[in-house]
């Protein structure tokens, strides 16, 4: 019997080829969308789970309450981890990493720059499951000036030599590093990425004075392994006592308290609240939103399939009636419909695999990922296949099977099989759901698109066009380069600074006048051309006028710092930092020196001359140019650089490009969301097409009679459209508040958002009405134009 059903399924597919292809297209597209989203979601959820001890690894985060101001950062000071390890048996291992830094590896007189370099404790390879291909995992990072490099780094540095045991110089370190290990390249689903690791003991030699205090040098990422059976509440209690003993006792009565939190490594990718992650984190809502879209698309495709099946059931009524007359029971018929659906879902799944293969590069490009079908473990793939083909097939066949198996042979043989008008039709519920999902998706897409657009084009308060930054090692090199570039007429202005908008800035604790005990503020050092070059606006006071000692104790601040300090007249106020007192000479309008994802934070600006000697900031030459192509600028800069510093790699960034990069995830997310939504709507409209053709078939006789009695084509179109518009109206009542509720919450997650644009609701409703009318009219028009004589003859 199964063979018979399979043969029948194939014959039906062939016989109703266009209908079958519409179904196949809808289901295959939906499955492809779901598969791609599944790949993405699986990747996101798998972040950092490859470590054997993933469930037990936590990262320390500090929470400092300064009189109600909360500083919450993923950093810790150097001794915190070892102290916890020593004090608590629950903590079984610890590894410290410096923040991600750039490293320049010198070979002969040339250097190669690597972006992802850390100092790491020797326990690194014990705790993390990064593979060490060569070297001793426990000893590779033990001695000072030990260096572990990845396979790719090794290939770049030593294409023809064995890297192990080689000596190299890094940055301006006097001693040479010995390569003691080669690690496999980091898996892409790791929040921690590195090109090279230096032993932490090297850092201890460099920064001796910052290695023993809890309240200074809070700049390390410390990871702990906490034993699985630990009572976390008890551990937190003990940690609080330790924090008191180590640091908080000094602040008693001052309203300052530091506490430690243990943030699970598996939550870093999707739940990190920190802006200072090593790699850009993702967010849970994005993964949810994508999953929701996948689910919606699948539902819509399912509804669509159901609707089309029912729409075509009229054609099959006689067959079903005859099968029943010949003795088929309802279960046998249902089995037949299930197998037929399985046949279609199976084919669709195969087509979906081809679609995924075809569109994967585009998808990867948009999300900046490197996913492929085989990124999924076999069991996830199998589960997806069973879910899409079997379970989804079962769900999609339930209603058509129930509907068609309940045809009464007596009525079919009499030529009556349509349900009587006026009865509640489950397919209308499907139609309603499709309209609700489509309309909600239209609103969501518009809001996501507008928010992304807002990010891209918002005025950030500084020059965003035609400006580049070139990095130099020393202030002297920077000055040399600035002078050489000054000879070009298209260079409008130049400035030297330790950072630029979109670049990294450092946070330090400051104590503004009348605002004791102070707070954390970003801090940069700049020359007197900075404001002019970046076109920053002054709210009051003046900018630096010179770069020498006369400005050394002067400072500029931003509006946010003024507000946080509670100052009404900021000029002349003082700020204490590490024993030096600075006088405020000017207030800058707030500008977005970080990304728009975050609120503008306090900013302290000092003149380059008083930059502490222990700080290893790079120097950036900012070049504002006009009337020349970007490519020509780069050529000239490269030429000048090569002339001045032969053999050294040029490190540069065009600031507009960098800013774009900050929002690239949102932009691609917006585009992808738009693409998926469009697909969902197209699939939904195929369902409407099916239902309207069904309705048109059902009303053939009625339409014929109305025409004979003088109804116009328009009148008939109006009647059939009104039926569908009723459902659009009902769907609006449900979909629009839902979409509003969800997107309002989504927007609340951004520091700067557009606010919910209510007009999107009207757009969603109107576009749905227009699309529905067009689809319905295309079917009804056919019916309305048919010669009534023919319809009535066949009746």
């Amino acid at each position, binding site marked *: *019997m199964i063979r*018979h059903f399979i043969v029948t399924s194939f014959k039906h597919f062939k*016989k109703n080829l266009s209908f079958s292809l519409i179904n196949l297209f809808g289901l295959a597209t939906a499955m492809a969308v779901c598969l791609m989203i599944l790949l993405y979601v699986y990747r996101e959820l798998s972040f950092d789970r490859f470590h054997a001890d993933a469930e037990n690894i936590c990262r320390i985060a500090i929470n400092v309450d300064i009189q109600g101001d909360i500083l919450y950062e993923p950093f810790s000071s150097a001794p915190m981890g070892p102290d916890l390890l020593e004090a608590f048996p629950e903590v079984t291992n610890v590894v410290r990493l410096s923040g991600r830094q750039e490293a320049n590896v010198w070979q002969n007189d040339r250097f190669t720059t690597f972006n992802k370099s850390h100092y790491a404790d020797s326990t690194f390879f014990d705790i993390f499951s990064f593979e060490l291909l060569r070297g001793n995992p426990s000893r590779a990072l033990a001695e000072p000036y030990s260096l572990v490099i990845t396979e790719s780094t090794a290939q770049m540095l030593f294409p023809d030599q064995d890297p192990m045991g080689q000596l190299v110089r890094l940055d301006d370190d006097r001693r040479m590093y010995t390569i003691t290990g080669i690690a496999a390249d980091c898996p892409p689903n790791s929040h921690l990425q590195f090109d090279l690791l230096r032993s932490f003991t090297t850092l201890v030699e460099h920064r001796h004075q910052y290695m023993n205090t809890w309240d200074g040098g809070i700049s390390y990422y410390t990871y702990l392994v906490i034993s699985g059976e630990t009572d976390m509440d008890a551990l937190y209690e003990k940690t609080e006592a330790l924090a008191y003993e180590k640091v908080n006792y000094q602040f008693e009565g001052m309203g300052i308290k530091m506490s430690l939190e243990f943030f699970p490594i598996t939550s870093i990718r999707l739940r990190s609240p920190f802006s200072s992650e090593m790699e850009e984190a993702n967010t849970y809502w994005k993964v949810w939103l994508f999953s929701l879209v996948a689910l919606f698309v699948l539902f819509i495709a399912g509804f669509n399939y159901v609707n089309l099946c029912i729409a075509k059931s009229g054609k099959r009524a*006689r067959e079903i009636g005859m099968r029943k007359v*010949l*003795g088929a029971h*309802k279960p*046998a018929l249902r089995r037949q419909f299930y197998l037929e659906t399985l046949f279609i879902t199976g084919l669709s799944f195969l087509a979906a695999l081809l679609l995924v293969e075809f569109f994967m590069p585009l998808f990867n490009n948009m999300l900046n990922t490197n996913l492929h079908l085989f990124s999924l473990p076999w069991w996830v793939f199998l589960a997806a296949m069973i879910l899409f083909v079997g379970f989804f097939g079962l769900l999609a066949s339930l209603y058509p099977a129930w509907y068609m198996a309940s045809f009464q*042979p007596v009525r079919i*043989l009499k030529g009556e099989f349509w349900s009587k008008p006026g009865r509640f039709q489950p397919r209308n519920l499907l139609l309603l759901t499709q309209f609700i999902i489509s309309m909600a998706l239209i609103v969501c897409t518009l809001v996501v698109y507008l928010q992304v657009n807002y990010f891209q084009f918002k005025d950030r308060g500084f020059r965003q066009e035609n400006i580049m930054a070139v990095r130099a090692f020393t202030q002297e090199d920077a000055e040399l380069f600035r002078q050489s570039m000054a000879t070009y007429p298209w260079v409008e202005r130049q400035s030297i600074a330790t950072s630029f908008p979109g670049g990294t800035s450092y946070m330090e604790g400051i104590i503004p006048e009348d605002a004791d005990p102070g707070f954390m503020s970003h801090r940069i050092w700049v020359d007197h051309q900075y404001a002019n070059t970046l076109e920053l606006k002054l709210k009051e006071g003046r900018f630096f006028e010179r770069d020498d000692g006369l400005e050394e104790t002067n400072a500029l601040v931003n509006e946010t710092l003024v507000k946080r300090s509670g100052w009404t007249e900021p000029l002349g106020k003082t700020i204490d930092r590490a024993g030096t007192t600075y006088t405020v000479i000017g207030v800058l309008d707030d500008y977005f020196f970080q990304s728009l994802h975050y609120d503008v934070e306090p900013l302290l600006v000092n003149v380059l001359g008083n930059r502490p000697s222990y700080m290893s900031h790079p120097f950036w030459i900012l070049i504002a140019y006009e009337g020349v192509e970007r490519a020509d600028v780069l050529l000239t800069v490269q030429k000048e650089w090569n002339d001045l510093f032969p053999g050294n790699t040029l490190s540069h960034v065009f600031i507009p490009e960098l800013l774009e990069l900050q929002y690239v995830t949102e932009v691609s997310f917006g585009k992808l969301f738009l693409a998926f939504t469009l697909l969902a709507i197209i699939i939904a409209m195929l369902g409407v097409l099916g239902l309207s053709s069904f309705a048109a078939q059902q009303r053939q006789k009625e339409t014929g009679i109305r025409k004979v009695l003088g109804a116009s084509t328009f009148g008939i179109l109006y009647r059939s459209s009104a039926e569908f518009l009723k459902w659009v109206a009902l769907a609006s009542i449900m979909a629009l508040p839902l979409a509003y509720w969800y997107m309002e919450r989504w927007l609340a997650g951004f520091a700067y958002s557009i606010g919910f644009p209510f007009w999107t609701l009207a757009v969603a409703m109107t576009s749905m009405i227009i699309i529905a009318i067009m689809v319905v009219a295309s079917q009804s028009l056919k019916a309305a134009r048919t010669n009534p004589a023919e319809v009535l003859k066949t009746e």
Partner: protein
Amino acid sequence: MIKTVDLTKVFRTEEVETTALNQVSFEIKEGEFVAIMGPSGCGKSTLLNIMGLLDNPSGGAYYFLDQEVSNYSEKQRANLRKRNIGFVFQNFNLIDELSVFENVELPLIYLGYSAAERKQRVEEVLEQMQIMHRRNHFPLQLSGGQQQRVAVSRAVVAKPHIILADEPTGNLDSTHGDEVMNLLETLNKNGTTIIMVTHSQRDASYSQRIIRLFDGQIVTEDKTTEFVLTAAAQ
């Protein structure tokens, strides 16, 4: 074989109640060839549907093979039907997507015959009905007469006790019509009971007895010879 006692069928809608059959009683013995005649709307097809176990009566009793079946569930009726009744319809009701062979095979599939048995039975019947050479064709590739021969093949393939034919020649020209009637006559001579609804006096003349209905009631039950004579006299 078939016996009805005060068989009644009432169709109800929200506003109207229509009595399609009103206390109809008759008996059909095994091996008979009975024609049911009457004007449109007199209840012929309703009676045929009930006799064919496609529908239940609203009242009265219906004995099929000595079992009272008027209150049988759909499943019970389907079981009884597929083993004992073959149907022939005016519009053939063949499944367009299936070949001649597959159409004829269908009842055997629902009876659970093995593939080999099905092949043997179907081929036997197709040979008998002289349509074997068309076994791989599809219904729409056949003439009306050929389609009805396929339908008759399908009706007899499971060797039913009874064949119910609803206007079997209604869609055929007289040559093809005669062909089909001869087939039914042969089947009857071989022992199959045949009950046929028809408007055609010519077709009715093949039967041994005619039940005439009017307004849901039996008005006469004639031997065919008497009926033919009466018709000739009129």
